[in-house]
């Protein structure tokens, strides 16, 4: 018997493929958003509302992840947005390889913004990087104020947390302040956007933040070139 030190990340293969995806997206100048939530929190509705407000700014596409059906892709195509459906069968999350394979069947040529709607699940998707630039979580306020404490990992991983269905707060008996405090407790840096896809309240704030985030990332990726040219001038 002998012991071999390994020290390898179990998700190493996923990380490698995610990195390949990231490079493909970067080379093509595509900003990629990974949208995660429990089932029924409103990811697809948030996407629809976001797309209506952002479609004039960017050429966009959507990859949909679900266990079954093409219902979500149909909703995206109804908006005139190119969409590709991944049906995972029984797998409870999207992984980097699924996205990689999707790129063989779905043309990202000319896209500037790609939304990936993950499989509805409050736990698993948080562990699998897809090669995205931005992780966003949708949480419906009617799920209760305490869930961020109970299922903290996804909240912690998300840069922005969208608190959807605020129009239902009075019926659900959930205090928004308490929910926001619980999100910040497990994810101090999170940007929080209370909203309702039904009434439209709060969606513009999120969309403006997103546009800002995309533009900042664009400037950052353009920065090395600026550095190079300024160096060329000094030489």
């Amino acid at each position, binding site marked *: *018997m*002998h*012991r*071999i*030190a*390994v*020290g*390898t*990340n*179990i*998700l*190493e*293969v*996923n990380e490698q493929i995610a990195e390949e995806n990231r490079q493909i997206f970067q080379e093509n100048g595509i900003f990629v958003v990974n949208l995660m939530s429990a089932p029924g929190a409103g990811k697809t509705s948030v996407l629809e509302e976001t797309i209506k407000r952002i479609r004039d700014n960017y050429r966009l596409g959507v990859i949909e992840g679900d266990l079954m059906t093409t219902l979500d892709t149909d909703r995206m195509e109804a908006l005139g947005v190119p969409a590709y459906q991944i049906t995972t069968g029984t*797998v*409870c*999350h999207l*992984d980097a390889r699924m996205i990689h394979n999707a790129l063989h069947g779905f043309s990202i040529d000319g896209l500037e913004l790609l939304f990936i709607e993950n499989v509805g699940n409050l*736990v*698993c998707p*948080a*562990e*699998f990087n897809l090669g995205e630039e931005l992780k966003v979580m949708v949480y419906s306020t009617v799920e209760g104020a305490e869930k961020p*404490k109970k299922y*903290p*990992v*996804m909240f*912690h991983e998300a840069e922005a947390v969208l608190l959807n269905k605020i129009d239902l707060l009075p019926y659900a008996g959930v205090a928004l302040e308490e929910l926001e405090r619980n999100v910040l*407790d*497990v*994810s*101090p*840096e999170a940007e929080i956007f209370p909203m309702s896809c039904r009434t439209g309240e709060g969606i513009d704030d999120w969309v403006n933040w997103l546009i800002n985030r995309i533009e900042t990332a664009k400037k950052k990726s353009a920065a090395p070139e600026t550095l190079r040219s300024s160096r060329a001038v000094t030489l």
Partner: protein
Amino acid sequence: MHELAITQGILEIAEREAAKHHSGRITRIKLQIGEFTGVVKEALEFSFEVVRQGTLAEYAQLEIEVVKLRKRCPSCEKVFESKDQFDFFCPQCNAPAQIISGREMQIEYIELD
């Protein structure tokens, strides 16, 4: 149940290491799993029972060490663990703290015949 996918990842890595060392039998796999991950120890053990069939690790012991979530406060440098809840604010100065452990998902070592 993403533990199944994770367990497959574990076995791929373990079998690759065993092959590198020309071994046909893995006797132990030691994991470090952070408590701030979406991985459940029991589900991992259950998945392992299923996935190890017919692999070099068919008779291997799976040992899982759960790594505590620890955070460091950027302003006072205090390192603290969570008690019953995962909160990220320093108990001394209330500043948001950074994770220093508890997100691990790695194979620490394997033992071969």
